[in-house]
């Protein structure tokens, strides 16, 4: 039974993608309906998978030859929770798209890519075979590129898409390198084999694997030093930003780190590097979000920052905390993006300097946005509070004190920029004459469900904990119930300290953000424009790739005889390699 559901969760969205594409752009209502249908079915299947979660591998027998191993999927707690997040938020994003993409051209291509992505994401987290994880990883990168460049007449969108593609591909190379090291040393691609035998690998090989996976995760999750592609990826249609760049694809890096944590925690310097990567990303992104004037860019920076918190948690040893925050973040960030999407769709601009006072005209969106903002800032009762406090607590126990201090400061910054956003968009007087219309009903449904989610998802902590602890044999997790969590957090002094900082941040923001000019904006903004100098690193990578590609295209002379010479030379190389290897 488990095999059927696992197969459904991956195949249903792919089937839906094909069907929607075949329905042709002449029937947009049919396409919308089919897309919603398939994504909701996938969501139901993913929730059903919770009943079958176990650490036993589900084997789908496809004869692939000895070189590739068996197609196994492991529906353990980590995989099943991420699958549910991907499928449920995916379906909500598709429902939202019915209104957002109303009247847009080329819906078939859009829905195809979105559904294809959802299937690939579920396959990525469920896969028990490293080679197939890589395979699904690349599919998600492809869909992300296709969706960022969806408006392919817009050169900014295309440039953003290519930048995202190239940088995440650098990460993909890291993943492949680690996979091949595992195969060479252990002879198997199975993840369970890697986790079981990690201690027996030679130290150099294990370190190589650990750091290449870190590179892959950092590139995919837009962490330092690969963090510049995410803000530029905001050219994508907003439901795509909500789904891919907030709730699912960027979590793939976190998933990778969480999955392989028991294998790599013994590698000297690895946990510290992970911690630092998370810390620096959280800090830089929070500062950048303070200055951003584009609503989606601010949210993108906020995503990078929150992912930094999750990475920091993993570095400090709190895999459970990171997954809990992942769940909360997926819900409230998707909510924020979709609400921002409603605003952008109705006023036609992304520039916050032109917005203002929209709360009066769009009350529903204002309310849900405020709910999301409170969750992001970490205000009690909402899910963000519990998960962020858990991370900070773990940070206090297991990481250096200065690191904890920085993250605490980051929490204050988070509150600051969040309320700045809320104020700039919804309150104050109107700065520009904009034509506002209310959000459509499909949008409201998606937003309402997500807003409800922010109040509720933290209640699943006990269940999540049990699920993870019982189905992940290699991670050492304790069973902790919700009640224990609540009492632990409420009684820890660190929590009250954090709340104080958050309150301070919110207070300052309310006072200062009345004018959008921020103190230090003059010297800080140029730094942020170039992402603290790291944009040049990323630009260098992109330009370098273009130049190398141009050089290589010279070898394609198009003449048959030269091509044949190329083939025979390749044969020669293969023979030489075989001869030397013998």
């Amino acid at each position, binding site marked *: 039974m488990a095999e059927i559901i696992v197969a459904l969760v991956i195949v249903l969205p792919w089937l839906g993608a094909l069907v929607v594409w075949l329905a042709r752009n002449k029937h947009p209502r049919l396409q919308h309906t089919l897309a919603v249908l398939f994504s909701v079915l996938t969501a139901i299947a993913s929730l059903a998978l919770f009943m079958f979660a176990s650490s036993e591998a589900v084997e789908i027998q496809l004869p692939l030859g000895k070189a590739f191993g068996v197609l196994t999927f492991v529906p353990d707690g980590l995989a099943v929770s991420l699958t549910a997040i991907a499928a449920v938020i995916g379906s909500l994003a598709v429902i939202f798209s019915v209104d957002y993409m109303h009247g847009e051209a080329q819906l078939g291509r859009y829905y195809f890519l979105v559904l294809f992505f959802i299937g690939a994401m579920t396959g990525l987290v469920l896969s028990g075979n490293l080679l197939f994880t890589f395979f699904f990883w690349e599919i998600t990168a492809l869909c992300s590129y296709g969706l960022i460049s969806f408006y392919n007449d817009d050169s900014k969108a295309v440039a953003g898409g290519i930048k995202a593609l190239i940088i995440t591909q650098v990460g993909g190379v890291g993943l492949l390198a680690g996979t091949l090291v595992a195969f060479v040393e252990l002879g198997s691609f199975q993840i369970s084999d890697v986790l079981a035998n990690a201690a027996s690998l030679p130290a150099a090989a294990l370190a190589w694997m650990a750091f290449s996976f870190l590179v892959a995760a950092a590139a995919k999750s837009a962490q330092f030093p690969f963090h510049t592609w995410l803000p530029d990826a905001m050219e994508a249609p907003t439901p795509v930003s909500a789904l891919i760049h907030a709730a699912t694809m960027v979590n793939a890096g976190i998933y990778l780190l969480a999955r392989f944590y028991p294998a790599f925690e013994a590698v000297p310097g690895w946990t510290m590097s992970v911690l630092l990567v998370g810390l620096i990303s959280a800090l830089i992104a929070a500062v950048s979000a303070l200055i951003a004037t584009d609503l989606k860019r601010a949210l993108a920076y906020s995503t990078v920052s929150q992912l930094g918190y999750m990475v920091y948690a993993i570095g400090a040893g709190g895999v459970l905390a990171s997954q809990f925050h992942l769940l909360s973040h997926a819900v409230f960030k998707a909510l924020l993006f979709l609400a921002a999407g409603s605003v952008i769709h109705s006023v036609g601009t992304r520039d916050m300097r032109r917005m203002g006072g929209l709360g009066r005209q769009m009350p529903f969106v204002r309310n849900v946005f405020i709910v999301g903002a409170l969750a992001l800032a970490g205000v009690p009762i909402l899910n963000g509070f519990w998960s962020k406090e858990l991370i900070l607590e773990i940070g206090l126990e297991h990481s250096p004190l200065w690191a904890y201090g920085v993250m605490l400061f980051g929490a204050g910054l988070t509150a600051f920029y969040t309320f700045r956003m809320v104020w700039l968009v919804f309150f104050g007087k109107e700065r520009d004459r904009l034509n506002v219309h209310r959000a459509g009903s499909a949008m409201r449904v998606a937003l309402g469900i997500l807003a409800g989610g922010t109040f509720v998802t933290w209640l699943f902590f006990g269940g999540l904990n049990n699920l993870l602890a019982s189905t992940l044999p290699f991670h050492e997790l304790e069973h902790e119930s919700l009640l224990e969590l609540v009492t632990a957090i409420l009684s820890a002094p660190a929590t009250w300290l954090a709340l104080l900082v958050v309150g301070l941040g919110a207070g300052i923001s309310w006072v200062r953000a009345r004018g959008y000019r921020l103190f230090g904006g003059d010297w800080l903004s140029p730094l942020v424009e170039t992402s603290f100098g790291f944009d040049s690193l990323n630009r260098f990578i992109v330009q370098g790739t273009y130049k190398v590609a141009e050089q290589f295209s010279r070898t394609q002379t*198009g*003449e048959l*005889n030269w091509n044949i*010479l190329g083939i*025979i030379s390749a044969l020669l190389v293969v023979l030489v390699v075989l001869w030397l290897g013998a």
Partner: protein
Amino acid sequence: MTLTPLDIVLFGIIALLGVGFYGLLITRNLIKIVMVLQILIKAVLLALVLAGKLSGNLGLGQSTAATVIVADTIVAVVGLALAVQVRRRLGTLDVPKISSMRG
């Protein structure tokens, strides 16, 4: 070092392969290229039967060789039909000229 008959066959196969590759590199005529492919296939047939004989399973070697003959005949037929069409439309069978012609 004595050369068994099978060694001679092996050298013959490799020599035919070499001549075939050389021909592919040198030829400029499209129909000649189809012919040189035939030479390469004959070397492959010999290799298949030789391998079958060496492993004792001559039946398998022969059946694979039969499949290869069928496949390569189809290749020759389709290749020649393509060559005829190329000649009709582009007016020449010279491979370098065909490669740089546009439209």
